[in-house]
Each structure stands twice: as structure tokens, then as C-alpha cells.
């Protein structure tokens, strides 16, 4: 079984190809929603921020961790709502057809 560093590198390289392949034929119309959607997906940084704050002991660490969690939560919530609103426009337009 591959372990440690190489496992991580393998995962990351496969993920990079996946990201590239998955959107390689996107119409121009969807550029903005897709950017907004991927903006939401990197909101996963909230998980890391929570772990960082969750293991913070000194006040300095807590302050930085608190900022990280607040910013990441904004990324998640804002990213979702903005994407949802943009996509809703498409839904409405389709429903009319």
C-alpha cells in the first residue's frame, strides 16, 4: 500500500486532472455560475479553519483561528447564496420555455 507523501501526491494529481476534465467543454454562458460554484467549493477551507481553531491553545492562536473560521464561513455562506441566485435565473428562464 502506498502511504504518506506519495499517496497525497497521487490524490492531488488525480484531482487536478479531474478538475480539468470535468469543465473542459463549458459554454461561455456558464462561466460565471461555474466560477461562483467553484468559489463555494473551496469553502471547504472552513474544515481546515475549524481544525486549526479547535487545536488552538494560546490567545494568539485563538485570534488567528477565529479570523480563519469567520472568513471561511463567509466564503461558504456567501459563495452558496451567490451561486444559488445566479443559477435561479437560469431555472426561471427554463421554466418559462
Amino acid at each position, binding site marked *: 500500500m502506498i502511504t504518506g*507523501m506519495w499517496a497525497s501526491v497521487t490524490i*492531488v494529481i488525480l*484531482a*487536478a*486532472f*479531474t*478538475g480539468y476534465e*470535468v469543465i*473542459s467543454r*463549458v459554454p461561455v*454562458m*456558464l*462561466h*460565471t*455560475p*461555474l*466560477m*461562483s*460554484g*467553484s*468559489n*463555494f467549493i*473551496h469553502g*471547504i*477551507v*472552513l*474544515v*481546515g479553519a*475549524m*481544525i*486549526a*481553531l*479547535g*487545536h488552538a*491553545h494560546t490567545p494568539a*492562536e485563538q485570534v*488567528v*483561528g*477565529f479570523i*480563519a*473560521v*469567520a*472568513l*471561511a*464561513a*463567509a*466564503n461558504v*455562506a*456567501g*459563495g*452558496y*447564496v*451567490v*451561486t444559488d441566485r445566479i*443559477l435561479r*435565473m*437560469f*431555472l*426561471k428562464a427554463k421554466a418559462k*420555455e
Partner: protein
Amino acid sequence: MSASVLIEPIYLLACVSFILALKRMSRPQTAASGMVFAGFAMAAAIAVTCAIPGMENFALMGVAILLGGGAAYYAAKKVAMTGMPQMVAIYNGMGGGAAGAIGALELLRGASGVSAAFSALGGIIGAVSITGSVIAFLKLQGWMRERPIVYPLQKASNLALLGAAIIAGALCVFRPSREILAAFFILSAAFGFLMTIPIGGADMPVVISLYNALTGVAVAMDGFAIGNFAMMVAGTLVGAAGSLLTLLMAKAMNRSIPSILFGAFGAVEQEGGDIAGSLKPIEASDAALMLGYAAKVIVVPGYGLAVAQAQQKVKELMDSLESKGVAVKFGIHPVAGRMPGHMDVLLAEAKVPYDRLFDRDEINAEFSSADVALVIGANDVVNPSAHRTGSPLYGMPILDAEQAKNVIVLKRGKGKGFAGIENELFYKDNTRMLYGDAQESVSKLIQALKDV
């Protein structure tokens, strides 16, 4: 201990869902459902993170999530559709800031070796992303000059700054101290700030996409540093998809990434060659007459339509013209407005049917057979100087509105476009200018059309 066995499987599930979400979002039919996928995946990943053993500070965490998430939720709900591009920029910047802060925290805590190196990478990329995105936000929001800000030795000093940031980052890894750590982040943030101010507003969509990809990479780096594979996969996914998206957007504008980042758009305004002709204003009633008796009208919407929130009125104008037997088509430039697809979204909101919207390749051949090209708040995307070598706009694909028999331009004032370049189209013999806020002007046109 019981819930913690779920952590890895749920992270895996989240990663798969993110991939499926991106896949669905790249097709119009499935785009909306893709977001639901991603939303559930994110909620599950966040919930299960609380089960990681040895976590503390839950109260602080709750307050931070409520504060940050609540404010962002409220702002994102409230902002008008026209403000969406800059909202993407600011939330992306916050993600970058979070990634930077995680890197800082790991270094502060005395991470060493490979982990410290990845923390430093996450730190520098995150810090560049947050200040860069904030500048993009300020420029699009109009709180900062949209024109490129340039000064002598800009590239050299920025390069030196980046070099200094990298050296400070290396010191953080090998000889850590709080002072160096602070210097590292200040230098990184300053670099993000300074490398973004020379970029003009016209290029901002591409730049926002670039910072979006960078934030993804920063998140992946942090994922490496703290050994969290959900962050590694999701971050890399966004980094790769975002990079490709950035290239696609730049291609749609016929711009290259280096020329966007280092070209300082308006700075090369050496032309200024006198434009023949003059600006010829027109009254709404006369414009309505031209429109009412036309057989075919092509509407070219731009940012001015978005600013004036004129999309509903434009739909009314379309209905009114069609009731008079005028064929109405919309020519949508891929980057009209401030983001690709901006116009599609706004016109869809006003319920303009999709079969009236045509992209550049489809509509350009039709301008010569159109009686009137109605340009509503668009400027650079119809500037014929893009066809001429030596123009700063040279090579940008444009809508050939100048080919139409008559051109009516709705414009707020006599200012230049985003790129800061005079538009020859406005001076042509067959062009008339209808000055005023786009919404008011279109209302006047609708009113005047009733008497035609």
C-alpha cells in the same frame, strides 16, 4: 470515538459530490441541481469535522461561524444581481484569507519540515488572494479608480516584493520567528495589492477567476500541511478547474494571461489619433421613430444596462417593438458587463426568451442586414478600433454594430469605456447618441413608441 470513524468516509463522499457538482454545473440543464449536491456535501463535511477527537474552542467556533456566515449570507441575499461579480470576488478573497490564516497558525505553532513548507505556500498564496480579491471588489464596486494605476518601475518593484516575500517565507520554514512570520504575511499581502492595482476593470473577470483558482491551490496546500485530504482534493479540484476557466475566459476576450497581469491595459494610450466626425445627440422621440419603422433591430447590451437595472424596461421595449412587427434580436458579447454570462443572467431575469439571445459568432453576420443596432450601455465590446493594429484593444473580438444601417447608442455621459479608450463607433455618420441613464432612456423610448 464512535462518530470519528465517519470522518474519512464523509470526506470522501464530499469530494465525490464536489466533482459531480462541477460536472453538473458545466451544463445548462443540470447546473442548478449541481449546487444542491455541493451544498449537502459541504454541510456533511463541516458537521463531521466537529467529531474530530481533541477539538476545543467550540464556543468560539460557533460565534465565528455565525458572525462570518451570517454577515455573508445577509449581504449575498441583499445585493442586487448587478453586484454579483464583486460578491464572488469578495467571498473568494475571504476563502483566501482563511487559507492564509491557517498557514499562519501552523507556522505560529511551530510546524516544521514539509508541513511548514506547505503552510508557507498556503500562507503566501492565500494572502495574495485576499488582498488581490479585495482590490478587484473595490474596483468593480466603484470604490476605487477602475483605471489601471501605474507608476515607474512597477514590474521591477513588484518582482522585488515577491522575491522578498518568498525569502521571508523560506526563513519562516527554516529559521522561524514571530517577526519574520509577520513580515512574511505583510509582504505577501502587499504583493497581492500591488500586482492587482495596475489591472484595469475590463480584465477583472479573468483576474477574479485567477484568484479563485489561487485560493483553491492555497486550500490544497493547507490540506497538505494539516493532513486533511478533503481540503487537498477540493482545493486541487478548484485550482485545476479554476485555472482552465481562467484560460477559457481570457480566450473569450482574446487576451492572454501575461498581458492582463503585466500589460497595464490603458497605460499604452499612445494613439489618441484624432477621430473624424463628432458626437451627434438624438431625442428619444426621433430614436423611437427609427426603431418603430425598422424591420430588424439588434440590441447590444452592456454594463450600462446592468448599472441602470434596465433589463425589465428592455424587455418591455422588446415587446413593444415586436407588437409593431419589428424583429428584435440581442447580440450578447461573451464579456459584456463585468463577467462572462452577465448579460444572459440579467436578461433571463427579465424573462427575455433565450431564442432571442445570440452570441458574437451567430450575430455578427446579421448586423449588415439590421436597420438599427441599439447599443445599451456597451462600449468597448463594440469599439471598431479593435480591428486596427496599434489600438490597445487590438485583437479583442467585438460585435460589429458599426455594420448596421443606423446605430443608436444609449449612454450615460460622454465618458470613455472601461478600457479608457475613445470609441470611434460613437463618431460615425450613422451613429446617434441618446444620453441619459439607460433605464430612463428606455422608458422614454417605450413611451415615444406608443405614438409611432
